[in-house]
């Protein structure tokens, strides 16, 4: 008998709010999470704003925050989100999960560089056009510190969550760029289906609002430079879009095998019914212009779920607000859904949340779960000037009531790794 997978708890820390319900109200109320960058002096940068997590303190979520004192910013987000998810799943009250059958599967980013020390060591050991490594070593071993270095490894978020929840089962972290946490949830669900595990803590956490990442994305000309209108800078599918707004945050979900979840009386928020993954295999700098790669992930998810295109009632888009992505994604939806494409509402919550990179997919899937629950599609905000090349129904600016049975969430990673998930209400 096929093992089914349900979402039994969710938690989030993102630029709009630090709880699931407040995030949902903020999204439906038209709020944006964008503001000036405060983590470093970005006042002369071409893009001076981001979707930052504001006023976040781990102490508000756990009584023993000191236990994670060495952890990076994104790990702190992940812990806050995971504790919420654990509570929402009813596991804080009564926890019967077998720890070896409990997995961790995250799409978490690298931690941030110890920027000041990293830079000063290079600068102070610069001799004749190169780093003098003998001089560098003297300085670096004095200035750099174990935990600040090792906590940058992408697997360290796993280490903190494993410690917090006593996870002895499989622990994976993936970094398929902007598709990471969608992939994490899809693969975690696959492991439950395959009976490798019975439950998983999954999702993503990332913070790239730091000097070198902003520099890198600026050099790639991927970021919006609408500094004077930063509140409305993220404009997916709008003709005036000029790039994405980089964000940070974490969203964590608890997945469980359906019968086990039912047996323990767990809340069942949604069922994961389909997952598909693909690669563009096109170029490292560009998406396949016809969207064939993204379409293949959507088609694979439909096949996995045993659904036909017309059964999907809403698509949560990757919708970054870059010139290229939104056209390619529109073509991909048309390729995957054919004549049904114009009838399916599509929206991008990145218009209000920004692009949380590794954490984007999980955060967006969370909004799909809420959309399914409330029969309400979150809008694509800041969409006032239609782009003739983006000619589908993007649910502009106001939420829409709709009867939703099957919802798809898409993520497309830089470099061409695409992932799609389909969820349904639990029957």
């Amino acid at each position: 008998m096929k093992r089914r997978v349900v979402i039994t708890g969710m938690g989030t820390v993102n630029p709009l709010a630090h709880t699931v319900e407040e995030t949902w109200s903020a999204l439906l109320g038209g709020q944006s999470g964008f503001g000036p960058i405060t983590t470093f002096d970005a006042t002369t940068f071409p893009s001076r704003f981001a979707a930052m997590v504001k006023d976040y303190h781990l102490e508000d979520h756990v009584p023993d925050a000191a236990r994670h004192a060495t952890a990076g910013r994104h790990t702190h987000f992940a812990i806050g989100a995971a504790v919420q998810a654990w509570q929402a799943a009813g596991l804080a009250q009564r926890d019967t999960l077998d720890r070896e059958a409990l997995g961790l599967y995250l799409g978490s980013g690298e931690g941030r560089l110890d920027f000041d020390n990293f830079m000063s060591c290079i600068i102070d050991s610069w001799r004749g056009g190169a780093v003098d490594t003998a001089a560098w070593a003297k300085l670096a071993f004095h200035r750099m510190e174990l935990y600040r270095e090792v906590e940058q490894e992408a697997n360290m978020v796993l280490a903190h969550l494993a410690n917090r929840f006593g996870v002895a089962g499989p622990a994976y972290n993936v970094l398929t760029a902007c598709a990471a946490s969608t992939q994490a949830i899809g693969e975690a669900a696959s492991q439950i289906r395959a009976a490798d595990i019975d439950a998983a803590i999954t999702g993503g956490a990332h913070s790239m609002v730091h000097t070198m990442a902003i520099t890198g994305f600026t050099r790639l000309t991927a970021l919006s430079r609408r500094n004077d209108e930063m509140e409305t800078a993220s404009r997916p599918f709008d003709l005036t879009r000029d790039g994405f707004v980089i964000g940070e945050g974490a969203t964590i979900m608890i997945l469980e095998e359906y019968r086990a979840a039912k047996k323990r009386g767990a809340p069942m928020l949604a069922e994961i019914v389909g997952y598909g993954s693909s690669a563009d295999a096109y170029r490292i700098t560009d998406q396949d212009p016809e969207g064939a790669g993204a379409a293949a992930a959507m088609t694979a998810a439909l096949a996995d779920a045993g659904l036909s295109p017309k059964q999907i009632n809403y698509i949560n888009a990757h919708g970054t607000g870059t010139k290229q992505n939104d056209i390619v994604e529109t073509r991909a939806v048309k390729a995957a859904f054919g004549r049904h494409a114009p009838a399916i509402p599509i929206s991008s919550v990145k218009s209000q949340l920004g692009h949380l990179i590794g954490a984007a997919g999980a955060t967006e899937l969370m909004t799909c779960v809420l959309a399914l629950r409330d029969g309400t599609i979150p809008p694509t905000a800041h969409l006032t000037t239609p782009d003739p090349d983006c000619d589908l129904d993007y649910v502009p600016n106001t939420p829409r009531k709709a009867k939703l049975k099957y919802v798809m969430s898409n993520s497309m990673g830089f470099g061409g790794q695409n992932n799609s998930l389909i969820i349904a209400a639990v029957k």
Partner: protein
Amino acid sequence: MADRRVVITGLGPVAPSGVGIEAFWSAALAGRRCVRRVEDFDPSNFPTQICGPLTDFSARDFVPKDYRKAVKVMARDIQIAVACADLAIRDAGLSTPSAPGPGHVPDPRRFGCNIGSGLMCADMNELGSALVSSLSDGRFDFRAWGSGAMENLAPLWLLKYLPNMLACHSTILHQCRGPSNTIACGDASGHLAVAEAASWIRRGAADVVLAGAAESKLNPMGLLRQTLLGRTCVSRNDEPASACCPFDASHAGTAIGEGGGLIILEELKHARARKARIYAEVVGWAAASDPAAVDLRRPTCGNVAAALRRALAKASLAPDQIDLALPHGTAVPAEDDAETAAWSVALTGRAAPLAACTATGAMGSLFAGASGISTIAAAMALHTQTIPPTVNFTAPAAPSSLTFQPTAAWTPLRAAACASFTVGGQSAACVLKRYPA
């Protein structure tokens, strides 16, 4: 889909001991030792000054002419992976746009890619050249950087260091358009990638998958970080070749190596239909985590015991049906001792000691690349019924159920188990079986 079996049909090692399966395996059997003094940069003020470098390696040899320019936007880790991919695909007798040949052309939609990677370090000279133009009073000046100096960095600079670029370049070169993943889970990444790729094939999401991992920490930041962790050998800079001795009584830390291993995993019927050479069958895999390993001052081997036990269970094999162990063997004393104990726990019920081998002594730690390489060594051992020697081993550091040999041994091998673990507590195991059994 339980009837879908997964076999290994191509091997692509890029290791300090050799590039390509023939060079790699003959060096392994000969017990060639490759750890030497660091030459790529002046290591004189580093506590550890030894390493296992790739020599005479150029990624340009592994990509078509029109792709050579792109090698400039590949960090060392990516270059290694791209070479591994080319080697594995050619070894499997597959034909792709980047590795054309008379062989079978895999259906791109059924061809997946799952490559593990580590934390890549920015080239400090490249960064420094851009930085020095934005200093004020000898310090980094954010305002000068933001208003123009950052333009001294190449536009594609960020792409050089994104961990998913190992997979992205490989998928582009070889047209793998099926499932694609990038596992970033330290040293365990290669085994986790192989495990997940095998599960893709088993559930029918792909027929052929390029899987494994590659990494290079052979740079000043890599040496620094591993030394801060207390993992490097700092006492034998004058005798590098014998410095790294996993599980030996004289183990005293590891040497930083670089390399990787990618393999071609294929669904059995698919492989047989095209008359592919089959090295071994992948029959079991599992991962496990050590919740206490967040404390970096208390080194562990993750939860290798549970990973091995669960991988054997998935393979439906008892401990006495395994004839070869490939432990991670970092040569870090506390990690070695923990791993020795973990294997003993996993082998509970087995009467005789288990033959074992590890390549760490010969080439240093390859981090994520190590778990790719150990899968390749396991496949070759089963295919040739040969146990490669473990260099720098004379007497065990602790009572052990594993036995290491000083020279290569020809002996019947039915199945092999490999394990890996990483700082932070994640660990994985894969079980391979001789094919045909």
